[in-house]
């Protein structure tokens, strides 16, 4: 029963949605189900929050390494939750957006969330640079192609790239680095992108069929 019911739900819902594409009376089902997803996603995030609390409380109780930072994580989570769900500092009524200026939630978002998020991603610039120093060696033909394409794209986005090839005559303008970068993005890169996109599409379709036909059952986990 613990595996049969979920399997039946998957098969039923999957078939229903495929039928809804061809059967006008139920064609809005897809939109309704998408909205249901949004509602389930809220609970999934609450579950994620619950897990976060559980993991860090466990870490605190066992006094594991760096346990004091768990207090900071929990503090930040609870502060954001309280500020957002209670709409502390709300200048309007309950329908006012949590991102309205003056709310504690919005202030924390602006002073903490945005700078931290941007810095975390910006930090990757250094790691990308050091990784490329190690990985970017023209060891074989494939690596050389990758290296050259990345170099042209990088140079094409900077004034240096335009300056370096600006002396070229009009008839060879396609070989100017900015133009070459545009051509790579519009054709060679697009070809690879499309191969990947079509490949993903084929993979999704076959996996969907496996799920709907009940062949793929790994999402049900182990027995029990």
């Amino acid at each position, binding site marked *: 029963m613990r595996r049969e*019911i979920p399997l039946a*739900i*998957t098969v*039923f819902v*999957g078939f229903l*949605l*495929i039928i*809804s594409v061809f059967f006008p009376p139920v064609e809005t089902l897809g939109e*309704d189900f998408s*909205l*249901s*997803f*949004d*509602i*389930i996603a*809220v609970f999934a*995030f*609450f*579950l994620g929050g619950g897990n976060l609390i559980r993991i860090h409380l466990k870490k605190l109780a066992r006094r594991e390494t760096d346990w004091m930072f768990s207090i*900071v*994580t929990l*503090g*930040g*989570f*609870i502060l*954001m*939750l309280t500020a*957002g769900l209670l709409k502390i500092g709300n200048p309007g009524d309950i329908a006012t*957006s949590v991102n309205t200026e003056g709310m504690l939630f919005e202030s924390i978002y602006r*002073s*903490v969330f945005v700078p*931290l998020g941007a*810095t975390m991603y*910006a*930090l990757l610039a*250094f790691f990308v640079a050091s990784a*490329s120093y190690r990985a970017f060696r023209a060891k074989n*033909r494939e690596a050389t*192609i*990758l290296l050259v394409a*990345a170099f042209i*794209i*990088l140079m094409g986005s900077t004034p240096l790239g335009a300056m370096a090839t600006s002396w070229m005559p009009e008839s060879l303008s*396609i070989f100017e680095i900015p133009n070459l970068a545009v*051509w790579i993005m519009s*054709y*060679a*890169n697009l*070809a*690879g992108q499309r*191969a990947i996109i*079509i*490949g993903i*599409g*084929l993979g*999704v379709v076959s996996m*969907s*069929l496996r*799920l709907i036909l009940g062949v793929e059952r790994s*999402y049900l986990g182990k027995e029990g």
Partner: protein
Amino acid sequence: MDHFGIWLAAFLTLGIYSFLYRDNAWYKLSESIFIGISAGYWVVILFWDNFYAKFWLQRQDDPMLWVGAALGFLMLLRLIPKIGWIARWPLAFIDGATAGLWGMNFLASNIMVQTKATIMPLMGPAFSGSIGDLLSNLVLVGGTFCGLIYFFFSKEHKGAFGNAARVGIWTIMITFGAMFGYTVMSRMSLLIGRIDFLFRDWLGLLK
């Protein structure tokens, strides 16, 4: 941003950058704050935008959304080990609906539309007679086709098939190179943004 907000943002920004020296308490503090704050942020945003705005305010009388809410509630039972298995029901619903919706959507958009968009410039209304455009479009069609061949692993990559697969991997390498170049550029622009914040907003050295 007020004065305190700017100092706080600068303190946290430098805390994250301190990792470039080595892992340290300042970095861990900033990282822990980020984890807690971002988890809380997304829970709050989804609650107000999805649950309150889309469901509670607009479609409270829609039984389908009540089913969604009930399934969402069942998902929380995962936190109770004894009856945690019930949480498979909403998961099964999501899997089934995703397979039904995405299976059809991907068939239409990722496969049919992309294939059509690749071939049409060679023979459809978008056809251009110029040699340059024709060659470029041939590169597009050939690259896409060879790239797909590379992904086909049911046949050994030998002979003509292997040659096509080799052209495919070259095409994909160009794509990875372009993606890498763009990723570097976007990270660099974020870095410039953070440096600009530190020197302009915090220290006031730039006007």
